[in-house]
């Protein structure tokens, strides 16, 4: 089952998962729709799904301080890779999950990866999820990433998700759905950078079902050149819960950004707030950095980097 990794593959893996060579502990590396290498640990078991392409990841209750890596890379043009990854996270866990997809496309044909990730977060467990998307290659072929993320959180589960699109992704439609039980807390951070003629759509639906549940949706994006972004985050409060949605976009060149943050309350004890702001880089920020010796371009670069840190 061993597929050798080329320097391009290793570069992609470094970009999306910050790994060099094979990681320690549990991991599953997928390339062009095939398994490169897999390793389970004592507490984390990774197995191939029988009904769909993809994997099941079972994390034993009480697992603490472990990290599992499941990066995907696509280097073959004309490939449409659809994969289902389901995480079963036991009670009282404290784990980190690193996912991500890198596409290298030198051809005129499209490459596409659609990852459908589902997380069942057990009672009192803490999960940190980091997902990075990145595209490269000089071909005209599109690099398409359409991720679906489903999160089901039981009582008092705590989940921090950071989903980042670095650059080079021609088109993306992102669907994120979450259901929160009593006392569950979700922090959903999405950071997107689009450039050239790229398009990005992000739909989110977070249902706060249990009392005392809370969600914080933080969306930060930079739209450059002729790119187009659409944000549709929706938070629904069905209990005594708290929800906060914040969309912040920096727009440059001829880009277009639409932000439609929505909140829907079905309980008089739901407290929901949304904010959205779109604007170019503030002139006073650039000027301040220039007075500290940076050129205009350097100042702009610095501001964007910090904004998307």
């Amino acid at each position, binding site marked *: 089952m061993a597929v050798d990794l080329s320097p391009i593959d290793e570069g992609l893996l470094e970009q999306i998962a910050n790994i060099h060579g094979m990681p320690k502990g549990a991991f599953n590396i997928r390339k062009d729709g095939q398994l490169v290498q897999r390793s389970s640990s004592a507490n984390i078991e990774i197995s191939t799904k029988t009904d769909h392409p993809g994997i099941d990841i079972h994390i034993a209750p009480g697992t603490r301080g472990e990290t599992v890596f499941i990066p995907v890379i696509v280097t073959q043009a004309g490939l449409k890779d659809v994969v289902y990854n389901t995480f079963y996270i036991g009670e009282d866990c404290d784990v980190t999950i690193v996912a991500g997809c890198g596409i290298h496309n030198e051809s005129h044909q499209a490459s596409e990866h659609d990852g459908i990730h589902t997380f069942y977060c057990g009672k009192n467990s803490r999960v940190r999820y980091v997902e990075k998307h990145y595209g490269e290659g000089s071909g005209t072929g599109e690099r398409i990433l359409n991720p679906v993320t489903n999160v089901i959180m039981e009582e008092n589960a705590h989940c921090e998700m950071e989903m980042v699109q670095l650059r080079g992704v021609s088109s993306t439609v992102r669907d994120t759905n979450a259901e929160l039980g009593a006392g569950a807390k979700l922090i959903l951070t999405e950071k997107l950078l689009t450039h050239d003629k790229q398009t990005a759509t992000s739909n989110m639906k977070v249902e706060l079902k249990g009392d005392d549940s809370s969600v914080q949706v933080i969306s930060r994006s930079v739209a450059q050149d002729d790119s187009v972004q659409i944000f549709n985050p929706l938070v629904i409060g069905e209990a005594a819960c708290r929800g906060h949605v914040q969309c912040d976009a920096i727009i440059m060149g001829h880009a277009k950004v639409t932000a439609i943050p929505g909140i829907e309350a079905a309980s008089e004890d739901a407290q929901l707030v949304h904010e959205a702001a779109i604007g170019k880089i503030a002139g*006073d920020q650039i000027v301040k950095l*220039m007075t*500290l*010796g*940076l050129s205009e371009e350097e100042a702009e670069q*610095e501001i964007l980097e*910090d904004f*998307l840190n």
Partner: protein
Amino acid sequence: MLELRNLTFEVPVSEGAQETKRIIDDLSLTIPDDRFTVITGPNGGGKSTLAKLIMGIEQPTSGQILFNGEDITSRSIAERANLGIGYGFQQPARFKGMKVKKLLDIAAGKKLPMLACNEYLAKVGLCSASYLTREVDKSLSGGEVKRIEIATILARDPQLAIYDEPEAGIDLWSFDRLTETFRDIHEARDGRSIVIISHQERIIQLADEIILLRDGKIAATGTPEELLPTLGFVAKGVPGCQLTEPTELHLTEIATTC
């Protein structure tokens, strides 16, 4: 040494208008090394505009700016910064996602050790290392952001530092610490000049020279002993509010019967 020669700055009276008004009016001034200068004067007198002209943020309509003998009138902001001019803004910018530490590093032009950062913050009365990891965004209070702004200039340590109303929005305790800091820089007498735009008597008293700026012109200069007694008088001598009639307002169209 900074030299301003017949500096004039005009702006259109309104957007797109041909007619202009003078914000800085044929102003000449020399600030030698080691000098502690305070610029004071009424609101709208042109103090911040003068500072922005020196820093290169605004371009003069006419006149020259020389720094250490070199004509820098057409130099960019960054070039002036790198020649040794610094400006602490009256209204500091806020940055989403930028940490205080990062901003200080950029100001210093190098990665600063934590200890040095803490010292700069202490000098402006921010006595908690926890500020370093805070973001310079809306979560900081007005006084905090103002003091961080001042700290960036301390970290930059320019040959000529211009602070625009550093006292604004700062509590008494931090203000004490700040005046000490300015005095220390001045007493070092190592070729640095400090220009502070201020309305505060405590700061004015520290000055070697006070410049009273009004209507874009230097109305008076002198030492604190010479000028302080007259400043109150000068301020009181300013005629009260003289309402001018806005040109675009037609009084006849406003109902006067109620």
